[in-house]
């Protein structure tokens, strides 16, 4: 299991597109930007719907269940903030009912060797500080 205890994660800096995502995560709810015209979910948030060009976009809660779309296991210690955790798994999650929305995360509560494409995961929330909570993922066993 990767030791995250000494890691200093950088704090996200929201902008006008992304603030609802982080506000929602702080309430331990995973919300994604959804086009109100064609119902397409997208992540990262964007100015327009990348499917139909609508500008009518709202954030809606999603289940937080999905599969590992892709992953990498980091061994390089160039990023000193994360050096103490290597090797660790950084994963990309594709959520059910939101194809194409790709969420980065870490694989928590399991060994990094458990990261495999297609494995089912669910969202868990990791408090960074009083203002920010990170959506993270663990295996659905």
């Amino acid at each position, binding site marked *: 299991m990767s030791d995250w205890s000494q890691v200093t994660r950088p704090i996200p800096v929201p902008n006008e597109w992304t603030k609802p995502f982080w506000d929602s995560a702080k309430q331990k709810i995973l919300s994604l930007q959804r086009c109100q015209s064609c119902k397409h979910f997208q*992540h990262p948030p964007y100015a327009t719907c990348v499917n139909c060009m609508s500008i009518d976009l709202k954030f809606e809660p999603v289940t937080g269940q999905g599969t590992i779309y892709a992953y990498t296991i980091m061994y390089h210690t160039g*990023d000193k903030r994360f050096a103490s955790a290597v090797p660790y798994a950084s994963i*990309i999650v594709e959520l059910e009912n939101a194809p194409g929305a790709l969420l980065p995360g870490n694989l928590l509560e399991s060994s990094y060797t458990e990261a495999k494409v297609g494995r089912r995961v669910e969202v868990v929330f990791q408090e960074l500080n009083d203002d920010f909570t990170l959506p993270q993922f663990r295996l659905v066993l």
Partner: protein
Amino acid sequence: MWDNRCKIAISGVGFSKATRTAETPLAAHALEAVQAAVADSGLNMSDIDGLATYPELPATGHAEIDGISIVSVNCMMAMLKLPHLTWHIQTGSVNIGGAVQQATNALLAGVCKYAVVWRAMHNPKGTYQNLPGSHAAGPTQFTGPYGFGGPGQGMAVAYTRWLERNNQNREKMATLAVTQRKHTHHNPHAYFYNVPLTKEDYLNSRMVAHPFCLYDCDIPVQGACAIVLTTAERARDLKPKPAYLAGYGQRLAFEVAGRIGSLSSYMEGGSSSAKLTWERSGFTPKDVDVAQIYDGFSASVIYGLESYGFCKEGEALDFIQEGRIELDGELPLNTFGGSLGTGRIHGLWHIIEGALQASGRAGSRQVKDVKVSFVGASAPIVQGTTFIFVNEPY
């Protein structure tokens, strides 16, 4: 087919010495490469009237200082003081291939006669992807907090998907690294010239970001290369045999900043660029005698081979086996050593090698009877461009 097929050609090419450290300022590297390319053409510097580059420093957390860590068009103008300069540009959206295409367009428009394109790459002191700081803004707000530190990881995630969905084994990539290193021994300008690499070296090397080991990543260097582009008519009057540009393309797929790992985006980027290039040139993958495919990270070659149409999706690691990419193979690949052999100078070196192979000027690594020479410059996802050079306009 393209109305302007074979109307533009690459003439001279030039290189600076690629070094691991930045002892010589980058501007001097760029100047050396440009002077060498102009001399190779048999031109005088005062003949040059067009300038184009893509100046980005792909490292993170290092200042862009003109002449030290990038070489802008402005910097080159100051160094050369060209008396007849009529046109220049710096591109942003499709890396150095975009600069070559813009110079092509300028020549076709008749707004310059002899354009020089260079790519100069700096190797900063310390960690290349230097990610200090307590905050992650912009697109990195979704990646930085999870320890996605740089392009290596961004490329690695799609590669795991490719490997596992296709039941493939990363050890097969040793063939690419070892074969390209063999090609490197025919390229005295390359950083790894005469430095051997065995399959065992590859398999035993340290992991960087799984599935990438050390030899899947190009080594950062300080260096530059340059070309002279002109019209086919003018090129025929110059010293070297021209390499005629039969067609080009650029990626048409888009990607939202901060969205990483999408394998389909690599494939759509590559196939959209290649489609334009096949249609404009009138050739198909079966017509290609030699190929240069960008290999800043080894997996880019997989995405390139598949999305450009040289093999089916999921088959690229099998395609490169059994001598197929050797100099005398069915599809000689990255015959100059690729970025894995030369060091990280982005895609202009791939374009140069494509031109040298087309014009029969590749020396001891020349592939026999090259008529159609293909280049995929830059990773296909967001910066991809493709080119076809031919040895005679036909």
